[in-house]
């Protein structure tokens, strides 16, 4: 992995996404508000991969979509430092978004995107431009389109490249980089295995040379040997093209291998954000520690002693008061129940939201790399 530049590409501050849920009362009573993302701030640098982990309902997918305006944020700013100047994506007009759309892409796991969750305006924006970027076998890998046409879609739809020969050249170039067999470009997607289909999706996401790609559970559905191949491919492409990734996944060991920095999310809020080694070998938040100890390692000599968390992940519509983790935290005190912990920098580049972080020592030993 190359050293990454210090300059931010995307700066997210106080991002909030709220949904109105439930039925309206007979007399038009107020509906409940669900804050799927509740005041999240972080930045992503050029050429950097930021891993975003969390369990179901944590809001990690919503963060990725809100940054790209596939879901409308209800608050906060998303500052994008593009080649043609800065833009606040959270407040940009539809026509401005359309202009920069090829620079920002998404890769989902197969079958991952539920188009029903996109709002009407977002859908109109995305359908002509991005529908084929989503990793949904029904809407993205259109069975009636050849692989060449699928990969070319973002270039053609954005009107970025109109000359057919040039489109072909670009498609062949990115397909070769993604280690796709160029003779297969005229085939249809059904002839490909899961790993190859994922490479087609990555080729399509990168063909317009974007500077930011959201990968949402992009390798989760793949078998472990193919997963390793795709992760290596994403790293190589990043080194070559300088693209930034927001890599959203529930699998911590995958995130550990691909990310420069990692954020941990719990019920709509970030609890920790730190460089990858700090997060995995010196986590400061009890929830990060619990997540890490919950992963069974394929080594019978490593003790499996998961930190005991009582109960279940709270429903984000009824998020607990104070620190949201207090209902399950093994170290809970009275203060945690009423007072929300502030987001603070406990060590250089190491951000955390916990009242008592200084009292814990969750250090883990790092095994020597490779054999």
């Amino acid at each position, binding site marked *: 992995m190359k050293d990454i530049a210090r300059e931010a590409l995307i700066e997210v501050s106080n991002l909030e996404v709220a949904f109105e849920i439930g039925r309206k009362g007979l007399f038009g009573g107020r509906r409940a508000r669900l804050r799927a993302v509740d005041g999240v701030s972080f930045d992503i640098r050029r050429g950097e991969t930021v891993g975003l982990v969390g369990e*179901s309902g944590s809001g990690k997918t919503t963060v990725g979509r809100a940054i790209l305006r596939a879901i409308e944020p209800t608050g906060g700013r998303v500052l994008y430092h593009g080649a043609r100047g800065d833009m606040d994506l959270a407040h940009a007009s539809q026509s401005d978004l359309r202009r920069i759309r090829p620079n920002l892409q998404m890769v989902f796991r197969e079958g991952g995107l539920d188009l029903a969750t996109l709002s009407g305006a977002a859908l109109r924006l995305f359908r002509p431009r991005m529908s084929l970027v989503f990793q949904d076998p029904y809407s993205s890998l259109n069975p009636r389109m050849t692989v060449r046409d699928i990969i070319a879609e973002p270039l053609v739809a954005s009107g970025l490249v109109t000359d057919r020969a040039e489109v072909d050249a670009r498609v062949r170039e990115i397909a070769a980089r993604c280690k796709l067999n160029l003779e297969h470009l005229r085939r249809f997607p059904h002839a490909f295995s899961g790993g190859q289909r994922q490479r087609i999706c990555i080729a399509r996401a990168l063909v317009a040379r974007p500077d930011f790609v959201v990968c949402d559970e992009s390798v989760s559905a793949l078998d472990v040997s193919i997963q*390793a191949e795709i992760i*290596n491919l994403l790293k190589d492409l990043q080194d070559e093209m300088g693209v930034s990734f927001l890599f959203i996944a529930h699998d911590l060991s995958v995130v*550990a291998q691909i990310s420069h920095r990692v954020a941990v999310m719990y019920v709509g809020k970030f609890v920790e954000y730190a460089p990858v*080694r700090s997060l995995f070998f010196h986590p400061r938040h009890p929830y990060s520690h619990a997540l890490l100890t919950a992963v069974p390692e394929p080594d019978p000599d490593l003790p499996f002693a998961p930190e005991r968390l009582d109960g279940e*992940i709270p429903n984000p519509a009824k998020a607990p008061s104070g620190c949201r983790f207090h209902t399950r935290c093994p170290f809970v005190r009275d203060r945690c129940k009423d007072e929300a912990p502030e987001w603070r920098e406990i060590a250089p580049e190491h951000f955390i939201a916990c009242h008592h972080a200084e009292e814990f020592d969750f250090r883990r030993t*790092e*095994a020597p790399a*490779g054999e």
Partner: protein
Amino acid sequence: MLRVENLTVSFRTDEGRVTPVQGVDFAVAEGRTLGLVGESGSGKSVSTKAVMRLLPGNAGIDPASRIRFTDRQGEEIAIEGLKPGARALRRLRGGEIGMIFQEPMASFSPVYTIGNQIVEAIGLHRGLKGAAARDLAVGMLAKVGISNPGARVDQYPQELSGGMRQRCMIALALSAGPRLLIADEPTTALDVTIQAQVLELMRGLQRDLGMGMIFITHDLGVIAQIAHDVAVMYLGTIVETGPVRAVLKSPAHPYTRGLIAAIPRLDRIEVRLHPVPGDIPSPSARPAGCPFHTRCADRIAGLCDRVAPPVAKLGEGRATRCHLYAERNAA
């Protein structure tokens, strides 16, 4: 308790005969957990569904296959020969061999409460009725760590969270008092903190009840924590078996070695991961000879691509199907 020998299952499909499981042998003893591990399409689910005779209509179990189960009376049942719908088969399913699946919502009926469904199983397999059956159902829910089981028993499956549903599924499977439990990816759909809870629960229950268990998963980390023995499957055959510790610490078969090397680890950060080269061939185009030879770095030209490797015993209960070791045995 369960012995499966030379199990071959084929499906009639529009594209001809597909054989997702070919010549599989495994055994489970009382109080032991066998981990069945493999990537998608390796045949792990098909081989265990054959044990329960839960295969779809277009599937056929080869006549040379033997599936033998010793029931609680000590009688050996030839499962492969039972007629579909036979009384013995109905008694076996649930009562002697319980099964839990990845998605509990697909196994529960949404129109009956959790309690109704557990009480039904208790009535069928243990002959208990009314209050006695209900008390047992509440007791089972408490045993799997459901808080306030007296109230949960009257809830519908869709009212519960995923982790809670999987616990109820385990309670349902165990309420019939099976001696063998087949768990097919029971924690794959769960979040990691919930998975840890369910794994601990299953480990404890298995120890306390002395059940035999077959645990199917693609996650070698889960295998390391829950199984005593492991069988690694590739393209419908078992390529390596043995005690978990030995297999994970010093894998013999090139595929097992590749699989372990490919796993991203949490205790170290690598510059590059080590994928198993090549793609898994489709089960309808299984390579001749050793199924792994198309991806194997150690293949012996002229042998591995022609002759299916015999089982080579490695001692300490370990065995592998690989020419590299067969040669060594002969020498």
